[in-house]
């Protein structure tokens, strides 16, 4: 599994939500960085891959842990 450059703990975030935390972190990251989001919002497992694909980033994994999801993307552009 790719080593995350940065892990964003967005558990407990409903508004603005985990994806918005990821967008913020993506802006500050370098191309090639791996960003991992922790989320307890079930919607993230769908939202984050959908956004990443649309923006041209690679989804590395979507995993369910104990009561939360771990989702990682690689910044491609």
């Amino acid at each position, binding site marked *: 599994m790719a080593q995350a450059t940065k892990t*964003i*703990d*967005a*558990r*407990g*975030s*409903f*508004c*603005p*939500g*985990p*994806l*918005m*935390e990821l*967008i*913020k972190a993506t*802006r*500050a990251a370098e191309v090639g960085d791996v960003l991992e989001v922790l989320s307890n*919002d079930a*919607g993230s497992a769908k*939202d984050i891959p*959908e*956004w990443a694909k*649309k*923006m041209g980033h690679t989804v590395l994994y979507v995993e369910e842990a104990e009561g939360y999801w771990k989702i990682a993307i690689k910044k491609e552009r």
Partner: protein
Amino acid sequence: MAMRIVVLGGGTAGTTVANRLARALRPEIRRGAVEVTVVTDRDRHWYQPGYLFVVFNERPLEDFVRPERALLLPDVGMVVDAITRIDLERKQLISPHRHYPYDVLVIATGSYPDFQSVPGLAEVTYNFYTPEGAERLRDRLTTWTGGRIMIVQDVPHKCPAAPVEVTLMLDDYFRRRRLRDRVEIVYTYPIGRVHAAEPIADWAKQQFDARGIRYETFFNMEAVDPKRQVVLTMDGGEHPFDLLISIPAHKGAGVILNSGIGDESGFIPTDRHTLKMIGQDDVYVLGDATNLPISKAGSTAHYQAEVLVKNLVDRVRGLPETHLYNGKVACFLENSLGDASFITFDYDRPPKPAATSELLHWFKGMYNDLYWLTARGLM
């Protein structure tokens, strides 16, 4: 010697926490065992949610500003000075004029829209996140004769529901002025729905569809061409506008960026329950200044202040700090100039918008004046 509790910042978070502390620690302050001092770079206090009502000419800007000294209790000291650096090692705040030592520091330095974050944006945008921006937008709308108004936003920004509110209020504003058929309202959002919180997105989408408000999702601003009046998005799209209202990404305060104690945007790593700065036992952070993944909003600061004050009082009195912040936030959602919804949520419970009603709008209207009691630590 007195324990010096210094609150850096005189906005909602700083003022509320200082006043609540002064009330709770009155005996200690009166006998000289504790000092509470607010250090702020401005002597006026703005109620920022009021700007929305300025934009639509419902209330004058003067309704939403008070002298900071008049809001602070007499037991709270106040210093107006522009702090340029926080020295955690020597436990002092530094300005070009002097140093302010502290024993306990509460950082409440807020967040600020960065209109320079997107090339070309600052030259052409209108906004409702600053007092002068709200008046300028109000004046533009009063002389508006028609065209396309585009609402664009980036993260993080304070009051995550405000862009939806301004959109819905624009619709009602132009209907009331019998101009709605000449105005195209285009709302945009960076992800695949109209708001990140799904219940709010569902609520807003229903309103947009019913009221002929256009929306574009996956809309990620890259640049603005002020001459051609076009927003350029990351997917290569070009989106023309006649009037652009933007809510750009926010940054933490300059003093945080300058002190190197925040993340790349100037937000301070903070424990989500104790509100202590990570790795610091004597420094607390609240309101917009934290890096917590929750709404940057006055209500967040208010609920955090309630928890923080209990812990600080216990700390002063030699008791363990046992109170934990549960992530609580509460927001009104204006649906028009005459009705509103309301949401409340925390780390464990997602928001669920209440049925819209005139009553909730009235309550919001009353809160615009009741706010001064919150800042005084009374409610």
